[in-house]
């Protein structure tokens, strides 16, 4: 999209006005400062997804649109999660869990760990679900970003 004020609200406004769901949405500038990349996850029948695609393409600020699920692609989401560590045992257990999920502990206090984890949405869900006893203090997820596999690229 054009990296312009209001571009994001046009996309968000379109989804609410037409009753479509936004499951997640991420947006940030690209290597070209005049362009932003927005990745949005939504759910719907083929007809609804087709209509969403057409409506998004109509927005003047949308430069190019690609449905990543039409081909092989990679999805990633980043999460930071803060958990309470009450005892040495629980600290050990959490450390093991983080290693299994290939996460990193990025901040430590006497009573908490902050963990960084990247992967597909399901992996992050699984990680959260694995804390059955440890209290989660805070979770922040970036929303899904994605890119197609192979040399094909979304570029103008």
């Amino acid at each position, binding site marked *: 999209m054009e990296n312009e004020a209001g571009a994001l609200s046009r996309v968000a*406004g379109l989804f609410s006005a037409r009753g479509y769901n936004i499951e997640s949405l991420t947006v940030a500038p690209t290597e070209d400062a005049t362009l932003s990349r927005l990745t949005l996850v939504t759910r719907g029948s083929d007809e609804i997804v087709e*209509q969403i695609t057409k409506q998004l393409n109509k927005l003047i600020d949308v430069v190019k649109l690609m449905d990543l699920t039409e081909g092989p692609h990679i999805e990633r989401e980043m999460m930071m999660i803060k958990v309470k560590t009450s005892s040495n045992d629980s600290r050990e257990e959490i450390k093991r869990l983080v290693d299994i999920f290939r996460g990193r502990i990025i901040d430590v206090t006497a009573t908490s760990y902050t963990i960084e984890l990247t992967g597909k949405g399901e992996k992050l869900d699984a990680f959260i679900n694995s804390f059955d006893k440890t209290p989660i203090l805070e979770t922040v997820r970036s929303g899904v970003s994605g890119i197609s596999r192979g040399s094909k690229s979304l570029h103008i």
Partner: protein
Amino acid sequence: MPKSPDSRAFFLGATNGALSMIRQLHYKKRDCDVKLTGAEILTHFLHDEGVEFLFGYPGGAVLHIYDALHRQDKVKHILVRHEQAATHAADGYARSTGKPGVVLVTSGPGATNAVTGIATAYMDSIPMVVITGQVPTSLIGNDAFQEVDSVGITRPCVKHNFLVKDVKDLTSTLKKAFYVATTGRPGPVVVDIPKDVTAETADYIYPKTIEMRSYNPVVKGHSGQIKKATKMIASSKRPMFYTGGGVILDDASKALIEIAHMVGAPVTNTSMGLGGYPASDKQFVGMLGMHGTYEANMAISNCDLIIAIGARFDDRVTGNIEKFAPYAKIIHVDIDPSSISKNVKVDVPIVGGVNSVLKALLKQLKEDGYKPNKAALKDWWKQIEEWRSKDCLAYKTDTKIIKPQFALDTLYKVTKGDAFVTSDVGQHQMWAAQYYRFDKPRRWINSGGLGTMGFGLPAAMGVQLAHPKAQVACVTGEGSIQMNIQELSSCLQHNLPIKIICLNNGFLGMVRQWQEFFYDSRFSHSYMESLPDFVKLAEAYGHVGIQVTKPGDVEAAIKETFKLKDRLVFLDILTDPTENVYPMVPAGAGLDEMILI
């Protein structure tokens, strides 16, 4: 009779002449190195863009712009009495000419008042550029006096909108606004200009063209799809054309008539499409949909091919979507891909400008050596004529009370079907669509999508300004007319001899009709109490008012109305309050399940 406004007009004319001389002396020379203020850039740009009329209303945030307008005489400003009317007038101008309508309003309430007119234009894809004043950039977000987030408020009802934060971007933004508004599927564009931007200076050179990397509307249809479509037409036994506002917006009437005559199929129009195909042509079967003709709705329910052109399968057209056109394959031509397969799944989508695609279809049919299937068409037309013989628009005349259908039939006869007709919304709108048989495009001006009461009179102002010599009738009701009646004052100021044909039945007729049918005649708040004396009201505004109460006087009164060529006439016709619009497809029913009279 009111006092003649002639003396006043003469006085104004003289003053205007003197003023314009003074203004010309002050008008800065073009193409020189002088930097212009944002306000001057705007007036210069509008002139260079070919804008004749600017419909507007002044206020604090646009004072610099109004001052620049005062110092030039190229763009004519039309002062209205309410900003909603400015947008409808610009809309009427656009619909009747094909050129974009241009509006100027102030910040805050000026912008919010304009929203209804912007949404009206958006729903019917009318090219319009609306300039809204804004508080100075330093105050944006401070809840300043007359501040409103105009870009935010209008976002869902514009094709695009802009906030200009730097005077250096003003010219290119204005060019983009006109480009976006008038190309592709047209629509309204808002340009919000803070007051300080209109005071700061910049160089001005009129840009002849503009490029936008994210906006490239498709015009030409895909040749493969066009070939598929012509094959489908050739193999159809019961084809039918269903055409809408797109034919009028793209000036495609000529191509439509040519292809319809070549194929020999019946043609139906949506309410927005009336006049796109001549109503007097034998192949025309009338409007379709909720208040469409029996023959149009039966034909679309029984045809085996719909050739949909510049129409969008709106819910008022299709009735119950499950029951819509069960036997038909569908070819759909539209410039907006999102209109295709939105409500009804189509077999051959063709994205492109209607005129260009129709011409391509004609060329392809000729190349294919297309010959209509005469035997099949003969059977098809035999069936259609049977439906047509029901004469579903026949109405009973009465010697005591005026039937609204009779009044509009008479209007058609007196004006020889050659008037521009604007309408408001409700029963009178449907009767006008049914009984004023439009033969030419851009003659029927109504709010089809949004259904905006109060549209008719201001829209007629825009039409009359664009066509000063033409007969312009505003068909309205006593409910709708009161939603923008203040514009009678603007009509006097700008000498607009509009003929207001008010079908006065003392009811919000369409609401009353639904209450009668579906709410056991509980007429909740649909009765118009304490109506003004419209004759006196018209006179108070300096116009002519005529009231007619007997069927025998209708023709003479309408003739008298149109004889007063230079005057606005308010013709108050007291009509039968119990009359309903027929045929009618009730909500949830299929088109072939209509209620006839």
